[in-house]
């Protein structure tokens, strides 16, 4: 009965590789988000999608590409991974685009070696 799930929970990879993180929500929400939490625990939004449409696109390298096949899924694909991409990535969802109450997934810890 997990509300927002992410896979994998841990991801260790080499520099230069391409990897994807998947997110699914079973809450029937219209809006989904990706956040990045760096080593200093600073949490910052990267993207948001509403009904498969990109809404928020912060200043993120274009190596990061979100993909929303349907409104219950928002995947994050990262090309040419760099050391600085190491972080915890959180997916979240909210009932609608107002984002008043956001439900977060458990996070994916990415380590780039």
């Amino acid at each position: 009965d997990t509300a927002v799930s992410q896979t994998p929970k841990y991801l260790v990879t080499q520099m230069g590789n391409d990897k994807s993180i998947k997110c699914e929500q079973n809450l029937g929400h219209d809006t989904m988000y990706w956040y990045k939490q760096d080593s200093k625990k600073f949490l910052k939004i990267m993207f948001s999608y509403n009904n498969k449409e990109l809404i928020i696109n912060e200043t993120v390298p274009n190596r990061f590409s979100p993909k929303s096949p349907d409104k219950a899924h928002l995947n994050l694909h990262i090309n040419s991974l760099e050391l600085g991409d190491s972080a915890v990535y959180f997916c979240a969802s909210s009932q609608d685009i107002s984002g008043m109450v956001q439900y977060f997934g458990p996070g994916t810890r990415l380590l780039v070696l």
Partner: protein
Amino acid sequence: AQTVTQSQPEMSVQEAETVTLSCTYDTSESDYYLFWYKQPPSRQMILVIRQEAYKQQNATENRFSVNFQKAAKSFSLKISDSQLGDAAMYFCAYRSLYAGGTSYGKLTFGQGTILTVHP
């Protein structure tokens, strides 16, 4: 652009005691929302409490309450009767009321405060 500052990197409290976590923010807007999120060791972010800036009454959720001082741009979280399960990192967050376009629904977070609860 709005900023959120949590000046206490770490706080500690004895079980059953009360602790207050501080948060200040900077904005030129008159209407907005403020939130406190809890991040336990499991890493999942959990909404603790929410405050609408246009409401003068401070929000309360069981043992959690806020002290919202709009003029001072201060939004502190008070945890009463602290429990071991309250140990976590706490984040203060800001959301514009009228944000549209590419900022719609955007939450701006503070740096977080680690709360330790001693038995």
